[in-house]
Structure formats: structure tokens, C-alpha cells
């Protein structure tokens, strides 16, 4: 549950949508008008792209704030958004953008090059930016020429900068409108503005009752033209209703009181798929489920930690039947992990599932490591989470076959996080979703030691740290791919985690809802959505 509300995602995508309209062109023309009612697990918190950090906000941000570039549907490249042309100097240190003519904010006022500079400067600023400012940290300065040109001067070449400019964090805001909001300083004005934001995206917020509902209506000034020759989007409005309880959310859909629901429990996907009134979709997600291990030689209480031995970690990986966990937890909707990063991440390398289930190998490795009779290990579990409980219960059974006794420690979210941040744990369940179409974000958190001890596992490879730092400035795509291939290989062999599965985003909709998309980064895209009346 925490992961739904905390942390993740981002992206680049409104565009993905745009492209996919043509790819998935409906058999008959899209219809205009109507309000789509979409039930969500959690409410929005703060609708300001520079201060957005929770999934609930990240996932709808691109509907409210457009970006210079938009990620392509496959996430591997970008295409024009508010900027029609992008020129990157050969040394990668200067980027020049030409803005689309006649673009407007949702109040009809023009989007100026000064707004672009102001928005990006604010998002990357040490005091004005927030958690995701690091995405734009390689920018040294920004200047503008004439009415339509914006130039980024870089501190160093940054292979990720184009994707970063397509993420929510780089959404373009109106300097004039933010500064007109009440407040004594920028922070106060930003807060006031975020209650009633007017942005550059295809939709604009029209009403918001916290923890109840949020309505965003069609921005009549949006620049993108639909196949019918009129501007997108098709819908008059999207109304998000906040229903945290899984069972209630699904009941609402079945009763026809809402048109779509997110986070359908995997256990109910098959049932909803069989319902002739519904369209149950499993959107591919850049999302992994794993178990993290504390790899330090001793635990916080001073006891010896068998997970410090790489042979033990490999043995536990071999002793884990991924297909069984996929069946039990995701009801067959998941796929086994092939790398520490989701396979939809650019530069992810997969050669089939890692550590295929092999009890003989597992037993031999444990014996080699001096644990022929196994040992006891404790895993932190999110109290009340059916998924976590099912995951750990499956592991308990499988590992018992190699003599390892797994104990589950039920903790509520904040306690679990505090223990994790203090590295006071032996194992924990983990979930990750990419926020950007690049391997650098997940690598910096999970495999790179200096900032957070490789996701608090305490595992360190100096070679991985070095490769990662090189990759951050590597402009040659082939060299960068090779660096990431080596990082993934080293990580897979060292196995600081139990490689488990990738799981999709389960969304159920009434049949009349057409062309809604959730991209692998999680963003909900309503640009091309319409209701078939």
C-alpha cells in the first residue's frame, strides 16, 4: 500500500499516448464529450510538478502540465512536445529547443520561453526544487533567444537529459500565474497555486475535495490535434474518486457507479476478465517485486548474518520457485525477473529468468558455505498486506526444503521504514517502479553504494560504483549499454536480493471506456481516451 502512495514514478509520457493513438487506432472514430469517473486508491497531495513526489501525483501530472519533450510509447526515445525541435551539440554540453508556435496555458495566456526557463530553473533549484530535482541536476544554466528558442547549458554531457525533460518534474508552468498567487514568498505562492493550478497539459483542474474527488476538465487551448481535425482531448472531464478499500472499489465498478478502477487485486483479475460488462487490462509495468537482504557480516543486534556469504544468497535464490510465487501472489499475471531492473527499462539485459529453481544447487551452495542444515532468517512484512503475507508464506515453504527457517515479522509501514533506513533488518519485501525511462534511477538506488548503501543492503561493488559514475556522463550509446550490461551481470552474481517477479498494473474499466493508457512508468494518460456511447 505504501508503494502506491509513496514514491515512485514518473514520466514521460503523455506522448506515449499520442503516438499510440495511431498504433491502436480504434475501429470506429473516437467520440467527443462526457465525463470519465475513475476510482483511485489514494488522493492527490500536491499538484505542482516541481514538488511532486508521490505516485498519486506523479501518475496524473502530465495530464495537467505538458513537457518540452514526450517519451515515445516504448520509452526508448523522445519526440516533440511543447518544443518542436531539439538540437544537441556534439559534445552534449548545449541543447537548443525551438518552441511550438501559439501554445497556450489552460487560461488562454501564451506559453513564453521565459516560462520554460522559469519552470526548469525552479524544478532544478536547490531551494525551489524537491526530491526529483536530481533529474535536472546536470543543467548549469538556461537562457532564451527571441520568442521561440530556449538553450540549456550543461555542466557535463548527460545521456538522460532528454528523458528527464519528458518527466513530470520538468512540467511547464506559468510564471505569471504562480507569482500572482497569494503569499509572501515563492514557497507560499507555490502552495496557494497548487490548490488551484492552471497548467499547460491537456486537462486543467476544475474542482478538488481532498480525499473525496478531483475533477480535471478539458483544456480548450491544448495544442495537439486529433484525427478528426479538432484539438485533443476527447473527454470533457475526468473525475477521480478516492476509494481506498479494494473490495469497495471493485463493487463500485460492478455497480456501474464508476467507469474505471485502478489497483484491482490480482486475485480478482480473472473474475473481472470474465465479466462481459468489463474490460480488465493488465498494463505492462516497469515494476519489480523482490526480497532485499541485509548483506552485512553482523546484524544490528550483533549476531552473525549468514546472508553476508554470497553462496548463501545464491542458494536462497535457487531455492525460490519464482513461478510458484507468481501464481500465488500475482495469480499468474507476473513474469520472472531477468535483471534487477524491469525489462522495459532501456539498456536492461535479460537472458531468461535469473536463478531458475534448482534445489540441488541450492543445497550444495549452502553446504559449501557451511550451512548444510540451514539456518534461521527473519523477514520484515507489511502488516495487513495480503500480498506480502502470501509472498513470505510461499518462501517459508520453499526454503524449508533446504533447511532454512524463514520467520515473518509483521510491522506497520512507518516502523518498517524506520528499521530499514537504520539497516536494522535481515530481509524485507521490496517493490520498485521506475519514474524515468532510463536505467540510472533504479541503479543509483539499488546497486550504487555511496548514497544509500545499495538500497540499505550494505552490498558494495567498487566496480559497479565506478561504472555507474562513468555511465552518468557517457554519451556513446554503445559504451553506456556495455557499462549497464556489466553492472547488471555483477549485481546478478552477487545477488543482494532474491530476484522475484515483474508485475503489471491491473486496471478494470467498463467496456465503453476506450483508449485509456497506463504507461510502464505508471502515468495515467487520458489524452486519447473517449467514451463509446
Amino acid at each position, binding site marked *: 500500500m*505504501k*508503494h502506491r502512495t*509513496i*514514491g*515512485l514514478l514518473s514520466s514521460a509520457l503523455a506522448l506515449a499516448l499520442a503516438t499510440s493513438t495511431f498504433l491502436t487506432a480504434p475501429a470506429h472514430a473516437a467520440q467527443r464529450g462526457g465525463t470519465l469517473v475513475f476510482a483511485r486508491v489514494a488522493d492527490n*497531495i*500536491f499538484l505542482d510538478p516541481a514538488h511532486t*513526489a508521490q505516485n498519486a501525483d506523479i501518475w496524473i501530472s502530465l495530464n495537467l502540465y505538458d513537457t518540452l519533450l514526450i517519451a515515445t510509447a516504448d520509452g526508448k526515445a523522445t519526440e516533440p512536445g511543447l518544443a518542436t525541435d531539439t538540437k544537441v551539440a556534439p559534445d552534449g554540453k548545449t541543447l537548443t529547443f525551438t518552441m511550438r508556435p501559439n501554445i497556450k496555458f489552460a487560461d488562454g495566456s501564451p506559453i513564453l520561453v521565459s516560462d520554460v526557463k522559469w519552470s526548469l530553473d525552479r524544478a532544478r533549484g536547490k531551494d525551489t526544487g524537491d*526530491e526529483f530535482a536530481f533529474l535536472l541536476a546536470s543543467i548549469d544554466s538556461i537562457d532564451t533567444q527571441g520568442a521561440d528558442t530556449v538553450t540549456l547549458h550543461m555542466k557535463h554531457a548527460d545521456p538522460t537529459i532528454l528523458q528527464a525533460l519528458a518527466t513530470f518534474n520538468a512540467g511547464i508552468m506559468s510564471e505569471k500565474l504562480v507569482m500572482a498567487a497569494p503569499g509572501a514568498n515563492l514557497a507560499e505562492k507555490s*502552495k496557494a497555486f*497548487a*490548490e488551484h493550478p492552471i497548467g499547460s497539459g491537456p486537462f486543467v483542474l476544475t474542482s478538488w*475535495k*481532498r*480525499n*473525496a474527488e478531483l475533477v480535471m476538465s478539458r483544456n480548450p487551448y491544448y495544442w495537439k490535434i486529433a484525427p478528426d481535425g479538432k484539438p485533443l482531448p476527447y473527454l470533457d472531464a475526468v473525475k477521480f*474518486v*478516492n*476509494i*481506498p*478499500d479494494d*473490495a*469497495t*472499489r471493485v*463493487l*463500485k465498478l*460492478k*455497480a456501474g*457507479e464508476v467507469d474505471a478502477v485502478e489497483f484491482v487485486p490480482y486475485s480478482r483479475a480473472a473474475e473481472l476478465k470474465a465479466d462481459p460488462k468489463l474490460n480488465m487490462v493488465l498494463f505492462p509495468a516497469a515494476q519489480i517485486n523482490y526480497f532485499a537482504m541485509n548483506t552485512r557480516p553482523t546484524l544490528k543486534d550483533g549476531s552473525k548474518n549468514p546472508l553476508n556469504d554470497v553462496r548463501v544468497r545464491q542458494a536462497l535464490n535457487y531455492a525460490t520457485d519464482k513461478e510458484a510465487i507468481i501464481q500465488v501472489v500475482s495469480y499468474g499475471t507476473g513474469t520472472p525477473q531477468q535483471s534487477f531492473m524491469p525489462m522495459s527499462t532501456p539498456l536492461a539485459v535479460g537472458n531468461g529468468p535469473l536463478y531458475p529453481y534448482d534445489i540441488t544447487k541450492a543445497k550444495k551452495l549452502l553446504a559449501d558455505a557451511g550451512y548444510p542444515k540451514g539456518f534461521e532468517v527473519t523477514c520484515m512484512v507489511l502488516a495487513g498486506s495480503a500480498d506480502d503475507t502470501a509472498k513470505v508464506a510461499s518462501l517459508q515453504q520453499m526454503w524449508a526444503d533446504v533447511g532454512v527457517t524463514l520467520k515473518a515479522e509483521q510491522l*506497520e*509501514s*512507518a*516502523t*518498517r*521504514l*524506520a*528499521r*530499514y*533506513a537504520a539497516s536494522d533488518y535481515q530481509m524485507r519485501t*521490496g517493490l*520498485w517502479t521506475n519514474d524515468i525511462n532510463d536505467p540510472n534511477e533504479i541503479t543509483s*538506488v539499488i546497486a550504487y553504494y555511496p*548514497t*544509500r548503501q545499495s*538500497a*540499505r543492503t550494505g552490498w558494495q561493488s567498487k566496480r559497479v560504483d565506478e561504472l555507474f559514475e562513468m555511465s552518468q556522463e557517457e554519451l556513446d550509446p554503445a559504451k553506456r549499454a556495455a557499462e549497464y550490461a556489466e553492472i547488471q551481470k555483477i549485481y546478478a552474481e552477487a545477488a543482494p536480493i532474491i530476484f522475484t517477479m515483474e508485475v503489471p498494473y491491473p486496471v478494470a474499466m467498463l467496456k465503453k471506456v476506450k483508449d485509456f493508457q497506463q504507461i510502464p512508468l505508471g502515468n495515467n494518460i487520458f489524452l486519447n481516451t473517449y467514451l463509446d456511447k
Partner: protein
Amino acid sequence: MNILAILARRLLHIAATVVLVALLIFVLMHFLPGDPVMMLLGDRASDEQIANMRHRLGFDRSVVEQFWEFLKMTASLQFGESVSMKVPVISLIVDRLPITLMLTSMAVVLAVLIAAPLAFIAALRQGGIADAIIRVISQVSLSMPVFYIGLILLITLAAGLRWFPVGGIGENFFQNLYYLFLPALTLALSLSAILLRNLREALIEVLQADYVSFATAKGLMRHTVLGRHVLRNAWISTITLLGLHVGSLVGGAVITETVFAIPGVGRLMIDSIFARDYAVVQGLTMILAVMVSIVFLAVDALQALLDPRVSA
């Protein structure tokens, strides 16, 4: 003692209670493991991000400084700002309190409407079949968890028969009467079972009292006896019980509001506890403490009206 002196003394009690609650809730929240910064940043936060945010939000100050800040905020009735929702706590509470008040009020009314007639029937037919059935039903509804009753009502009356909406709230007062009926009924069922048992016992006792036999012997009409003598005397302990249960009704609202997707203070409280949003939990607790104290005061006043011996 005159009424003003009693009132003054009671208000003093309330003030003392509120100060104690303030201290208690502050200590409890701050002794819980975990903090709002980790909840905001999640498990991918770097050491540097954690330290920066802790400083920015003032969680790196001493507990004494933070408590002093909390007292100042409370005294100004502003309660500070929610770190997880980035809005003033008072505006969150003002937005959500009315819906919870409406939900709990409806629950009280429904509980009384269910309990009173059934208690009468059971008491008048003591030991009979009707009595047995009513007692079994009340036992069952008392022992079922609130979320379970809520889900059963949702699945049958809302999703199944479509008599009611599946959770959420309406656009205005009258729509809310309709939207809140099932959640109020959910809350009311277990409360009505408690009231019913208590009222039934009280009625049986009163029915056997000498003054009732005397009133009947005087030739008074049966409904006069029941209304003027039996009900009025039997009600007293039930009203006290009802008052005492208002606090747990707020607790039940936490669960009911989650199951029925109602944006009230119950859900706000639970979300804020999980998010370690100290300011919201503290502010809300203070307001609820004051309100529950006022209800207790009202119950005492009502008791005094019904039973002149109480104010003596």
C-alpha cells in the same frame, strides 16, 4: 450547589482533560517508531535527502522544542500544517468534521430507533419467543466486526439490490442522508445491541417495581404507565451508556469511513497515524477530546433533567 458552579467545575475538568490528552498524544506519537520524513520519502531516500527534509520540517529539533511548538499551535487553534498533505490542519478538520458528525448522529438516532421498540417487545414478553429471537440477533450483531457488517450491507443492499450507493458521499445534505444511511446503519447495529440489552434489563426491573404496580392498580391506562413511569425511569442508565459509547462510535467511524469511502475525520485520523503526520493526529485528537467531553457534559445534564436526584 447552584447550576453555574457545577458548570464551572465541569468546564475546569474538561480543560484539565484536554491538557492531559495533549501531553499524552504528543508523547504517544513521538514514541512510535518511524517518522513523517521516511514516510514522505519512502524506501528509496538517500541519507542526504532524509537529513535535508528532517531539517526543513523541524524534526531535528529537540522533543521539548517540538512540544512547545505544538502547544503554541494548539493554543492558536491552528494546529500547524500537515506534512503529508501540505495544507493547514485546521482546514482539513473543518472540511471533514461535518460529514463524520452527520454519520455518527445518524448512527445514534438509528441505534435508538432500533433498540427502543425491540427492548420494549423483549421486556414485555420476557422469556417468550420474541424475546429469545431479539436477544440472539443482538448477540450476533454485537459480536460481528464493524468492517464485516459494512461489507455484508454493501454487497447485499448496495451492489446486489442497488437500493443504496456503494460508498462515497453526495453533493448536498439530503443526498448525504441517503449516502450515509448504510454506513450509519453499520455503526448503529452494534451500538443498538448494547443499548437494547441494557434497556431490556432496565425495563424488566422497572416493570417489577412497586410504583409501577401501584400506578397500574390506580387504574392508569397501560400506555400512560409505560410512557410516564416505566420508560422515563428505565431510560436513565441507557442514556448514560449511550453517552459513554459516543467515544467508541468515533472509533467505529474510522473503520466505517474506510470501507464506505467516506472522507470524514475517521479516515483522516487513520491515514495520518500511518503517515506519522503528527500535526494532524494531534490537532484532531484535541478537537475530538473536546467534543467527547462536551457530549459527556450534555449526558450529565440530560440525566439531571430526567432524574432530579442526580443534580442533588
